[in-house]
Structure formats: C-alpha cells, structure tokens
C-alpha cells in the first residue's frame, strides 16, 4: 500500500491527531461526549457491515447492543470492580451465540421479512429484560464500578479515568475500522459485495451464500456487542431502552445519514447524529422547543435522504471528483 499526500489525507491525519489529543485540552463533558460518539461509531459500523455491504437491513441490531450491556452489568459485582476480560468475553460470546441462533432463522427470509424477523427477535430480548427481574426490569441496572483491566493484579488501564476510557474506545474504533476494512477487501468481502448485488448469481457461481451471510451477521452482531459493552460501562447503567427498537432505528439512521456502504461514513453519521441530538435537545439554547428534538432530527434525516442519497459522505466524494 502506498499513501499519497493529498489534501484529503492530510485533513484526515489532522482530524485523527486532534481526536487523539482531545482529552489533553477538552473538558470532561466533551471527552465523555466524544467517547459516546466513538462507541456509537463502532455500533454504526457494525450495522453498516450488514446494511451497506451485504444488503441486509436489520431493525433488531440493538439486541446485540443491549445483550452485551446487560452482560457487563450482570457480571459486575456490586461493591467491587469486575474483571474486564471475563465480562467482555462473556458479553461477546453471548452476542455470537445470539447471532448464530437468530441468524439461522432470520436469514431464511429476505428484505421486509428480514427486517420484521430481526425486529421480532430484538423485541423478545427487550421484553425478557423489561418484564422480568433479571436485570432490574424496566428500571434497569447499575454498574457501580467500571470493570478492571488487570492481569494478575497489575492494572493495565484505569478505565475509571475518563481520559483513559476515551483513548481505550478510540483504540477499539481504529482497530475495528481496520479489521473491517481489511475484511472487506479480501476474498470474503468481495463475495459479500457480490451477494449484495446479485445473490442468485453468486449461488450459481458456487458460493454458499447462506454461510457468507450468517458469518457476516455474526461478525456484525459481535461488534455491535462490543459497542453495547462499552456503552454500558461508560454510563454505568443499562436499561431495556438499550434493546428497544428506537435504539435499532437510531443506529440505522446513523448509517443512512453517513452513507450506507462506507465505514467512515457510519462513524461520521454517528458523530453528526449525536452532536445534533446534543445541540437540538439543549434547553438553554432552544428553550422548551428542545423537548421536541426528535421532530427536528426527523426533518434533518428526511432532508439528507432527499438531497443526499449517498449520505453525508456523498457530499465529500462528489466534491473531490470535480
């Protein structure tokens, strides 16, 4: 691979450096806000793998987000910090299992039916946590201390420190971005691209389409779980809202906002969505109108879908072609 020095690459490098240095100059509030953006960026990328690269529109992606979150909460002892490695791997394993179980069934369907089946599975998980006492019912459950990232007593990272937590999630975002990027350029990724465009032909060419889709679904689910896990430990709180279809719809909107089929687009979409949400729900700025922020968000998304069919990243790629 050779990197050319272009204005675009320079801008990206500057942006990355600034993001990396953010905790050094920004206030705690902003560092935490950006941690949330990074986490939602991971979440949006995971859904984009399905929606943008395999053509599978899921409206149940929050199931993974919520399951991993609940796993983090339930495996954290109340008065001391849990073990990061234990709860993290448990959370991801649960997500893989859930993806395998539901994927085998959901992937037998297509288009609208796939949307409905994924939604239905997520709703089941939602009501399990909402209507039973497993995770505190509708009130949710607290994580009093962030898990401890330590090997044989030596603390590697102090996740309680908001700066360290930011850098930690930043590292995960970069790692997941790189992983997905490499994956999508491989034989596997190209086969997914073929499946998205013409599934029937891929089968006729000799591809076991179902296994490709299922594996992509599992990868997307586990990465969604990673996002859910970090979300839970950042806020120290998990409730059924994390699994609700609103959460699924929000992440889908982030992907659409950024532009489907573009990993950085997904991250960008998540950033815009969260910053905008922060801005228009700000009461000191907009007064009582702020409580209607979702209305304004709706208008914004309609406008983007109407005028920028390739999402917000379409804005840049069109500009660079000129």
């Amino acid at each position, binding site marked *: 691979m050779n990197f050319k020095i272009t204005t675009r690459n320079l801008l990206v490098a500057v942006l990355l450096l600034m993001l990396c240095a953010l905790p050094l100059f920004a206030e705690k509030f902003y560092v935490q806000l950006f941690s949330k953006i990074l986490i939602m960026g991971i979440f949006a990328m995971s859904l984009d793998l399905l929606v943008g690269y395999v053509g599978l529109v899921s409206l149940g992606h929050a199931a993974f987000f919520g399951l991993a979150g609940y796993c983090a909460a339930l495996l954290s002892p109340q008065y001391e910090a849990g073990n990061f490695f234990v709860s993290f791997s448990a959370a991801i394993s649960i997500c893989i299992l859930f993806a395998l179980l539901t994927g085998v069934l959901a992937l037998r369907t297509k288009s609208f039916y796939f949307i409905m089946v994924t939604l239905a599975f997520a709703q089941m998980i939602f009501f399990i946590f909402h209507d039973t006492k497993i995770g505190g019912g509708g009130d949710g459950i607290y994580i009093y201390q962030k898990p401890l990232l330590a090997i044989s007593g030596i603390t590697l990272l102090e996740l309680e420190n908001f700066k360290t937590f930011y850098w930690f999630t930043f590292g995960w975002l970069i790692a997941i971005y790189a992983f997905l990027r490499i994956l999508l*350029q*491989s*034989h596997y990724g190209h086969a997914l691209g073929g499946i998205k*465009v013409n599934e029937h*032909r891929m*089968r006729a060419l000799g591809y076991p389409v179902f296994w490709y889709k299922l594996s992509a679904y599992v990868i997307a689910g586990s990465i969604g779980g990673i996002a859910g896990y970090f979300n839970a430990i950042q806020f120290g709180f998990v409730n059924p809202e994390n699994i609700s279809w609103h959460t699924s719809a929000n992440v889908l909107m982030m992907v659409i906002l950024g532009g489907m089929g573009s990993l950085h687009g997904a991250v960008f979409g998540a950033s815009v969505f969260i910053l905008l949400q922060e801005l228009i729900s700000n009461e000191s700025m907009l007064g009582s109108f702020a409580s209607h922020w979702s209305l304004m968000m709706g208008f914004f998304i309609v406008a983007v879908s109407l005028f920028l069919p390739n999402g917000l990243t379409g804005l840049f790629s069109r500009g660079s072609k000129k």
Partner: protein
Amino acid sequence: MSKPVLSARNLTKRFGGLVAVMDVSLDLFKGKVHGVIGTNGAGKSTLTNLLSGDLPPTTGSIFYKGMELFDLPQHRVSRLGIGRSYQKTNIFPAFTVFENVRLAAQALHQRPFQFWKRAGSFADVNQITERAIHAVGLSDKRKIQAFAMSHGEQRQLEIAMCIAGEPEVLLLDEPLAGMGHSEAERMIDLISRLKNDHAIMLIEHDMDAVFSVSDYLTVMVNGQVLESGTPERIRTSDKVQQAYLGYGEDSHV
C-alpha cells in the same frame, strides 16, 4: 463413444399442475455440443435449471461422471464442475468486467479464512480470470463497468464468468439472444473453441447457429423430447418438420 460427463435420466419437473419437463433423458459428452431446440415454453430453460441445480427435479436423476447428484444445493453443483449461463443476462452490473469474472474464478478458491489478503492478490485466481476474459475477447474492456457495455458484450461476459469457474460442463441458455450478426458469429466461434475441453449443452433459437455448431440435437415440445439425433437426422425428421419447424417440404433450415 466415451462415457458421458453429465447424463440426465427421465427428468420430470412439475409446477403444481403444470408439467414443465416430462421424462427427459440426455447425455453430454466432452468435446461435443448438444443442442436443445424447441418453441417458447417447451421446457428448455427448466431443463437447464434442473441440470444446474437451480431447481430440484420432481422425479428422475442426474449423474455427473457417474455420480448421482441428489438433493445437492446449487452452489455445490456449480463447484463440482457444472457451469451455466443465463438466458437473461445475469451479471454484477456495477462491477468491472475483471471483477465480475474474478468473482466467478474466486468461487473455486474461496479462502474465506485468508481475510487479511486483498482479493486481487491471488495469482492463481487472477490468472484464470485473465484467461477467461481473453477467451471471450474482452481483454481491452476489462476495466469497464459491466453495465456500460453493449448487450452483446454483456453476453460475452456472461460466458467468461461461466468458464472462469473452470467447469467441465457448460449449460448455455440462449447465448445468442439479442445479439447482432457479427457478435453472434463471434459467439459461435467461441462455442466451437470451448467444445474441445467442455461438454456443452446449447439452448438456442437461432437455427443456423444450432445446426452449424451442434454434434447432436434434442427437439423439445411441451416439456417432452420429440426427437433427438444428429443434425442431419433432425433436419430430415418428419415429426420435427410438422411439429416445430413447421414449413413445407422443400424449405431448408
């Protein structure tokens, strides 16, 4: 004669009350083109779909090199060595010619677990791809997106994708459909070249083409085999004259 590469025995396909293919048997040999002709709705495409694993037969059996293909999913049939082209062009329009064919070549070497390597970095796959593109004469179009090509070129691409899977059997469903005269000639030329190392079933409406390139012909009417034999025999068959060709005694096909 040597053993057939692909043979179908008493294939029948019913769609509810409709019998699309009824009791059809045929053999495909390496180095031979087996033409299948028949009116629209005679069951030719359904026959192709049965042989390629797109559809399971209601009754009857298919043997590939003596092994019965029973209940195999389509992708397995394809990887065994039965490649097919489609009557309606069935490609990846937004991909380049090279990527279309590369995906076809990759099917034999899928390597999903070497996910850190770029798709274009496998020499074997690239080589097969280049060979297939060259065989159909699209070498100078390899970087063009498939949708931007003429209909005839897309048909050529379809064949290139078919042979890139390195099949031993080629099921060609109307490869000449909608082609201009010179394009059609080039395609016939290509088919007769492919004949050397493939067993080919050719479905075609262009009578001149079928008779010129086929070694053996099967005529289908209403899902059934009306007659089969060498082109000379078909040409002189009374049954065929009456049922299909339909013209008077002295007209020639």
